[in-house]
């Protein structure tokens, strides 16, 4: 493709506004958050004048919903767009296209929050919180942990100083930290305790939705199960909704109610937990599940391993994005992109075979 052709293609893409599609999505009453045809492209600039030369299509049209009090997991290899999808959903990134809906805490109404800003967006920040993968990287090393947990309350102008202090002590107890430690700094804690601090900070504002971005991945084996149990206990206690991002499918199976499998910016399959693990429909999901090692030496490993790496999201393959690695690839996969189809109630997959 010549440079000129590339430019025109990009210009047309800029005008392509996928934001208001003709079909208004419908969500049932128990849904807390949903997105429809969500896109997030990151522009790549280059050349003499720093013009946009391409896009990284990190999230390329995904739709899903999460019911209140449930855990939805996004799984896939690194580079699949899981984290970008989550960050776009909670408005940490501005979406390139698509709509985001959220049942607001104050009004109880289901609102389109794709373009809200100012005070309205600030109040949304209270309702969605995030727990990050690396607890030492996401906690300020220069302030005591009590202040770290208190900070969101100061930012959102909540309560008097005494009330805030009480709330910090209460939160520390809830996540299983001794309140005497509130004057300590993060480096004085172990990895598991630091993750507890991260969780306390996320929950201090009573959020509705908590995004757990690889929240247990960096922890040691014996600590990981402690934090998983803590997250589940807190979910029950505060009827939290989780968007759980993980690459460890064992953890995902244990935690999730529903699961979406992502590949190169697209959702390829989504289903309730038991359905996905017992009856995966998409060849990618099958390959992913097949690749997971099982802690049982008696199981024979005659694995059908998919070869190759995930392609670049700047220039994804034509047609079905998985076709370059798919063991069941057909002629049509090159030409036509498969659409998400419902293959049984609540079980969707995008593959020409289905």
């Amino acid at each position, binding site marked *: 493709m010549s440079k000129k052709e590339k430019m025109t293609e990009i210009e047309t893409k800029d005008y392509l506004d996928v934001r208001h599609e003709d079909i208004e999505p419908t969500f049932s009453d128990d849904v807390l958050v949903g997105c429809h045809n969500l896109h997030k492209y990151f522009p790549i600039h280059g050349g003499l004048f720093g013009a946009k030369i391409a896009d990284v299509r990190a999230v390329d049209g995904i739709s899903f919903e999460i019911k209140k009090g449930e855990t939805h997991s996004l799984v896939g*290899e690194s580079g699949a767009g899981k984290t970008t999808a989550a960050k776009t959903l909670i408005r940490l990134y501005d979406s390139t296209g698509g709509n985001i809906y959220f049942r607001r805490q104050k009004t109880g109404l289901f609102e389109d929050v794709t373009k809200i800003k100012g005070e309205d967006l600030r109040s949304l920040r209270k309702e969605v919180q995030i727990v990050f993968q690396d607890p030492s990287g996401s906690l300020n090393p220069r302030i005591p942990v009590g202040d770290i947990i208190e900070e969101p309350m100061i930012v959102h102008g909540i309560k008097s100083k005494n009330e805030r202090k009480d709330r910090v002590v209460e939160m520390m107890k809830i996540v299983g930290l001794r309140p005497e430690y509130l004057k300590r700094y993060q480096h004085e804690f172990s990895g598991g305790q630091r993750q507890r601090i991260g969780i306390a900070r996320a929950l201090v504002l009573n959020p509705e939705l908590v995004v757990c971005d690889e929240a247990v991945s960096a922890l*040691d084996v014996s600590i990981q*199960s402690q934090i998983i*149990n803590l997250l589940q206990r807190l979910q029950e206690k505060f009827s939290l909704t989780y968007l759980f991002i993980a690459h460890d499918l*064992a953890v995902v199976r244990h935690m*999730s109610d529903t699961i979406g499998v992502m590949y190169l910016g697209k959702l390829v399959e989504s289903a309730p*937990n038991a359905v996905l693990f017992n009856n995966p429909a998409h060849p990618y999901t099958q390959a992913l599940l097949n690749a997971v090692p099982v802690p*049982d030496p008696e199981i024979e490993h005659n694995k059908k*391993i998919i070869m190759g*790496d995930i392609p670049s999201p700047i220039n994804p393959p034509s047609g079905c994005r998985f076709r370059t690695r798919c063991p069941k690839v057909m002629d049509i996969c090159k030409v036509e992109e498969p659409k998400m189809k419902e293959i049984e109630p609540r079980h969707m997959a995008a593959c020409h075979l289905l």
Partner: protein
Amino acid sequence: MSLLEVKNLHTYFHTMDGVTKSVEGVSFSVEKGSTLGLVGESGCGKSVTSLSVMQLVACPPGEIHEGEIFFDGEDLLKKTPEEMRKIRGNDISMIFQEPMTSLNPVFTVGFQVSEVLINHRNMTEEQAKERVISLFKDVGIPDPVRRFDNYPHQMSGGMRQRVMIAMGLACKPKLLIADEPTTALDVTIQAQVLQLMREIKEKTNTAIILITHNLAVVAEMADFIAVMYFGRIVEYTDVKELYKNPKHPYTHGLLNSIPRVDKPKTDVPLPAIPGVVPNPYKSPKGCKFHPRCKFAQEKCRQEEPPYILLPGTKGHFCRCWYPVKN
């Protein structure tokens, strides 16, 4: 005779805050062509054990305080640095966790792998290049001729790890130490790399020490497993016995607490092991696991249990006063 026999190894680190006894009284052996899995949490001494075998422990602050390491019948600890250099990368080689940091970013990967052959096998550059290209082919790097001139940053994580494996295998070592070789990789790529390691083992009869915290990876790869806790091996046996019949409460607890990909979701919390690994400067009295052990009794708090062969078993070793009855 075992290929590698480690006897009563003690490796200490002298730091500003005192002495850390990272490895204390570790003994194990590895047979030709078999895989030993060294399992444990971070800080339990599994990497220090393997670095001690390679004699790559920085000294100071580190020090191999006591012990013997027999490789092919010779004590590695009695070797001069010069002799050790001839063994490293030749008879024993090592693969590290992060291929990005263990490859030099300013040299091509081809050059870095050739270097091993030029140094150890006195090959010319041309001979080495030819051999490296065939090695790249063996480890499944597509288009090896072009890849020879790539720099590490031009390759994906999986490809870089293959380069590391090619480097490790260049001189057909008798023992390959793989320290968390797949931890930084995606599951699909992990499966590819593990498959590759299995093929290599079958083809070349290389013995492997696989260091990992992942109980699922080790179940698929190892013939024998040593579980480490606080610088000690607490349990050692063959892989099937360990998963069927774990005797040490730590092993037992770990196997029960991990979420399983092959079991359906339940609403029951995971039976997690409470507490954390003790501070290395404040070693608990008695059994090092007793503060977290649900079976701990008075004797465990007072006296450290010996590492013994359990009566009535074939090579099932355990360091516990009251082994779990299954």
